[in-house]
């Protein structure tokens, strides 16, 4: 399989168990063989590689941490992080698909759904037969979800949902949307199904980032959602935010994957491209860039590993997840941009991956809590004073 070996300057492989390494290597080989060759074409055409979904399901990366009875592989948090890292080495769009499907939609159903809801949806979502999305963000409420305008009004036998969501990954291709709405009893989560009367999910066009991902609007015009589709365990906004923590954890790892992909690409290029009679990698200006990037990637990897241990022990605080998401997304964006410069003019062609990663990481920097919001979360954690209230 591909020669990609990743960056491991600090021997962090030693921190992994044999199974964790096998999981990482399996997903890595899959990405080398199935994703890297086709992803630039999808990004160019603005299409999501839907043909990969059955393969991802067969591999077992959809809902991998869930118990086997719901179709998962009962993997630990570090395995999940490693899966995200390898998928995002291919493209952030693919990792976004997996994050939203697994960490947001499946996790919400698993954590807050009834037994019947879990049995109905999770095994089929794990097999990739049904795709999930997660509707929290609204056109006018991004960083401040508490102010959401989507309303759930009680009707006979359930609720009627009215409002719209925006920036919803997988929206148009999803069979089930976990939609958060303001009900009489506070914020509640609902399973809105494709084809329900009054529900539509038009795709948003014109993105310059995550071009191989489907991003949609969810429009709910008095959608009647039966009582059986209300998530009984999700009471209040905290439930939705708990799902985001799952996804942010994956983003912290995924960003490192994207950074490593760019680093490897720039290194391979600079070793072979000769100017002034020697490889570009032999010039001090370039070596300084490599040294800086290597240091930043290694630091980010260490954050991930420690965060993985904390999460496995059930001790990862949301501010700790924020720190890793904030640092690693920023780090990856910087690395991708730097690597683009190190590819010279070739770097602007989509034959090379770094510029696509850089463009993707612009979205990663901003979604799942903007860089700035995570800054304020850390500010609040340090000072005890919330700057955004």
């Amino acid at each position, binding site marked *: 399989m591909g020669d990609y*070996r990743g960056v491991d300057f600090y021997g962090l492989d030693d921190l992994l168990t044999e*199974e964790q390494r*096998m*999981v990482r290597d399996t997903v890595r080989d899959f990405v080398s063989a199935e994703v890297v060759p086709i992803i630039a074409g999808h990004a160019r055409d603005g299409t999501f590689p839907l043909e990969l979904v059955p393969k991802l399901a067969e*591999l077992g990366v959809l809902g*991998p941490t869930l118990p086997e009875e719901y179709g998962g*592989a009962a993997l630990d948090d570090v395995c999940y992080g490693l899966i995200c890292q390898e998928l995002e080495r291919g493209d952030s769009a693919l990792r976004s698909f997996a994050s939203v499907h697994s960490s947001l939609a499946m996790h919400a159903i698993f954590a807050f759904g009834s037994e019947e809801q879990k049995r109905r949806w999770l095994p089929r979502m794990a097999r990739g037969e049904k795709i999930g999305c997660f509707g929290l963000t609204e056109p006018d409420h991004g960083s401040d979800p508490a102010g959401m305008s989507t309303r759930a009004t009680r009707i006979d036998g359930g609720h009627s949902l009215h409002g719209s969501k925006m920036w919803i990954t997988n929206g148009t291709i999803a069979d089930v949307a976990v939609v958060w709405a303001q009900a009489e009893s506070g914020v509640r989560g609902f399973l809105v199904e494709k084809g329900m009367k009054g529900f539509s999910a038009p795709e948003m066009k014109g993105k310059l980032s995550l071009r191989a991902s489907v991003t949609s609007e969810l429009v709910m015009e008095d959608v009647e959602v039966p009582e059986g589709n209300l998530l009984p365990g999700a009471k209040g906004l905290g439930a939705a935010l708990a799902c985001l923590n799952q996804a942010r954890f994956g983003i912290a790892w995924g960003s490192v994957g994207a950074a490593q992909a760019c680093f490897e690409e720039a290194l391979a290029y600079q070793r072979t491209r000769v100017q002034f009679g020697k490889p570009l990698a032999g010039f001090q200006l370039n070596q300084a860039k490599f040294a800086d990037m290597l240091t930043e990637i290694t630091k980010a990897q260490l954050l991930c590993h420690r965060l993985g241990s904390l999460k496995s022990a059930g001790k990862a605080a949301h501010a700790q997840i924020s720190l890793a998401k904030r640092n690693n997304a920023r780090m990856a964006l910087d690395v991708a941009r730097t690597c683009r410069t190190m590819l010279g003019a070739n770097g602007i062609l989509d034959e090379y991956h770094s510029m696509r990663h850089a463009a993707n990481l612009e979205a990663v920097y901003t979604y799942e809590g903007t860089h700035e919001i995570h800054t304020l979360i850390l500010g609040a954690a340090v000072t005890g004073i919330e700057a955004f209230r």
Partner: protein
Amino acid sequence: MKLVACVKRVPDTASPVRPAADGRSIDLGGVSFVLNPYDEYAVEECLRIKDARGGEVTVLSASGADASKELRHCLAMGADRAVLVKDAAVDRDARSTAALLAAALKGMPFDIAFFGRQAVDHDNAQVGLIVATLLGLPAVAEVSQVEVGSGAVTVRREAEGGIEVHEVPLPCVLTAQKGLNEPRYASLKGIMKAKKMQIEEMALEIPDSLLDVLRMEPPPPRPQGRVVGEGAAAVPALVRLLRDEAKVL
């Protein structure tokens, strides 16, 4: 059907391979090991036969080093059993390796023993066929297609200028050619299942290696290319050199 895939742990061909300080072995620093790619075709074919007709797939390896990672990979792909014959010799010749594997196979009834056509470390391409000889079984090397009938298999192999078709009675020995199939990925569920499975260790009388490695040295560095000129003007000089010096014209 009882299927046995014999597999070997080999250095990843992407790893740098250098002679060690003793001048007789490989420097293992920085070398990562993988399942021999040809053996992966053998494992996959066994799994496909099992998927189609039922049965059991055993993977068997004789190894001087810890091959549990490679065996576990096979279990994660879907093999039912993994058997490891621990061998004190780090490296041995094809004949004694085959003797070791043949002794192990005598203790496990099988319909097909499948090998990769060769291991990508020494590239001998001998072990599977010697095993068949030692066990007195029919063998076909480098098969590119396998059809299982009742009591026999029909196999195809590419020969110069055509395709050979053989019918072979069971039990038999086959070695897999590249392209026999496309090996599956180990699924993540398979990895977790394999984690819980035991690798059975088999103690056997270990034959001496018949081969002594006296010396290993890297190939001489390839001499630098020579630029004889540019464009059409270079042609006469190039032709002269190809004729007089390289003597290929």
